[in-house]
């Protein structure tokens, strides 16, 4: 593939065969993946945004839960490298209630893909699938458990947007909102602490169990001002309105008052702090609407970086291991 070959993308030790979470990945392997992402990002600036890197490979997207942006991002990442894409949407009624996960996979797998991108409402489902196929599995979000490519693109966005802290040493990340139900929060905690940063988790006790603070490098607080103070990046999490009906939260007004990431609170953060959000945003709920459009906000850059980071993930798993 000539000049587009991401030669920088060979990690020093063999990375795991799948990307289920970031547990098996070393900081060096993650940085190597980011180096590959730099090459892919350069591809995305060209007039012709396509390289033949994955020509002949087939990527299957297996979404057991509705998602638009993540699925589009993966499909773009596959096609930009000339892979064929087959898509299976199993959300809603298309998977009969009684069909086992194994049977569903076996049906799709009969059509032969080299790698599956899987989103599932149940934690662990992508790991279960690895038992029943020879293809590589990329977790695109499983229940509340993990969303590793989101965490990778978040950290990559920080690395490319906050000069001087590319090594992540001494970096403080604040994650504010519904941490308990968030796979994005879990994967970011896993990744940023692995890279050397410290993470502060913030939310009401109903959405932030104490046990999540037991990991080294992680602190909990129930006061958003404390979480934000001096932070280099502040990530607001989407607040699902069903949390109110589920008895986990009082009114929207109170949540906004106590936990919204807004301009006033951002004054407590590092002067160059980034405002992040994994999307989709509830403007003026967990994040002040005008702050999302502020120069400190990298929300759109996060979405844009999703493509090169996922290109690097697909490339590394399909080609980098051979």
């Amino acid at each position, binding site marked *: 593939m000539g000049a587009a070959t991401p030669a920088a993308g060979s990690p020093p030790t063999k990375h795991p065969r799948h990307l289920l979470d970031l547990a098996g990945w070393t900081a060096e392997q993650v940085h190597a993946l980011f180096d590959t992402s730099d090459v892919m990002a350069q591809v995305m600036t060209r007039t012709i945004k396509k390289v033949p890197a994955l020509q002949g490979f087939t990527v299957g997207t297996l979404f057991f839960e509705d998602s638009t942006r993540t699925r589009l991002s993966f499909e773009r990442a596959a096609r930009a490298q000339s892979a064929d894409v087959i898509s299976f949407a199993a959300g809603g009624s298309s998977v009969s209630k009684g069909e*086992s*996960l*194994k*049977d569903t996979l076996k049906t799709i797998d009969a059509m032969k893909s080299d790698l599956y991108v899987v989103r*599932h*409402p*149940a*934690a*662990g*489902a992508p*790991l*279960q699938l690895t038992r029943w196929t020879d293809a590589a599995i990329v977790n695109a979000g*499983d*229940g*509340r*458990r*993990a969303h590793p490519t989101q965490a990778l693109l978040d950290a990559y966005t920080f690395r490319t947007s906050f000069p001087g802290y590319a090594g992540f040493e001494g970096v403080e990340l604040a994650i504010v909102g519904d941490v*308990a139900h968030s*796979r994005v929060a*879990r994967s970011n905690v896993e990744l940023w602490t692995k890279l050397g940063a410290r993470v502060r988790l913030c939310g009401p006790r109903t959405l932030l*169990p104490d*046990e*999540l603070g*037991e990991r080294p490098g992680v602190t909990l607080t129930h006061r958003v001002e404390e979480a934000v103070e001096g932070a280099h990046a502040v990530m607001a999490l989407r607040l699902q309105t069903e949390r109110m009906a589920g008895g986990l939260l009082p009114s929207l007004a109170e949540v906004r008052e106590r936990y919204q990431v807004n301009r006033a609170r951002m004054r407590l953060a590092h002067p160059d702090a980034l405002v992040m959000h994994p999307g989709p945003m509830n403007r003026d709920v967990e994040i002040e609407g005008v702050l999302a459009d502020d120069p400190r906000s990298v929300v759109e850059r996060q979405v844009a970086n999703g493509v090169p980071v996922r290109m690097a993930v697909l490339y590394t798993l399909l080609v980098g291991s051979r």
Partner: protein
Amino acid sequence: MTRPANGSEAMSEPHHGGDRPTPRTVLRGARLIDARGDHGVHDLWLAGGSVEGVDLGGDAELEIDARGLLATPAFLDPHVHLRTPGQEEKEDLASGLAAAAAGGFGTVVSMANTDPVVDDPAIVADLVAQAAALGRARLRPAAALSLGLKGERLADYAALQAAGAVMITDDGIPVVDSHLQRRACEYVRELGLVIQTHSEDPSLRQGGVMHEGAVSHELGLPGNPAEAESIMIFRDCEVARMTGARVHIAHVSSERGMRVVEWFKAQGAPVTCEVTPHHLTLTDEAWRAFDPVIKVAPPLRTADDVAYLRDAVRRGVVDCLGSDHAPHTRAEKDRDALRAPFGLPNIEVAFPLLYTDLVLAGDLDLARLLELLQGGVARVMGWPEPTLAAGAPADVVLLDLDTEAAVDPAGFLSKAKFSPWEGRALRGWPSMTLVAGRVAFDRAHA
């Protein structure tokens, strides 16, 4: 292992009850142990469905070489799911009672959460009749506490008892309505039946699929806190004390829950409790492998809970073991963690597992383990103490305490051929189980 004394073909199938007379049988050279003590090595003679005596003379129609084996009364299990009627794809009476016999059990109490529910005397009578014809373990059905397990109306307890029901329970579905629980206890008390409870508060349990704690928060799986169990155990014990009914708390899984049982026992409340083999040997850490085979209700708890349960077993707070053998199809367990059903099959490995992990590990005396599987269950149920004394039912298990073998689910007689202990090397495998003097299981011919 069996050698018919008349030289006819070795039997590989159990005798079927009814028409043929029970063969006079001798178990040669077994070490005899029962609740009265360790009697040393003897020949145990069985005749007419009862124990005849030790070291007798005369002719045997069936000679069994039991040298090197331990002979003890066949085990009793107050808690199994045989899925009949209506869910025979998971288990039926033939497979479930064969599996029970393979585990050394001579009598099992089947739960009522079937389809249709066992809330009708005709269903109870039918189960008893079907099981008697199989010649495997004896079946003693439990009947539902509420019609259709709906938690709304009392079932016809006296008629169910007359048809053969030995326990009243909505096991599988906690009784939410405290008033209904009270009235059931009041009504059943005069019948002398035991009421068994599945004590979990559904509103606190919510959609929890595993124990709520550090592991569930890390893995992002919905948690079910131990307090959902302890709160409901408190309610159930308080209603037992209030009504004087005999209440048996099924599958206590947590330290908090066990402490509540202890507190009520100390006050003389008429409560008993059981623990399961899985809650004594597995923890929530097993969820890291994301195999829903270990999805059970109540859930596997922490190592601290396991240690506390084991201590409660040693101290005599635990009355008996209940396997909660709960088979499902492989396809059902191949669903994701949220949609896979609760329950695992374990009756065929229960004794070897506990013998290896508790007795051989030095955590428990063999005599205490046997008591939990024999006299402990009998006292909970109000049955006579099982012994090897002359005149006792000839329900006997021969245990091989020496041979180590790996758990091989493919060889299970249960329809559920999977196990969280697959591949574990265990000792204490039952070699043979006799029920009413007939061979109900013979490992050499299984």
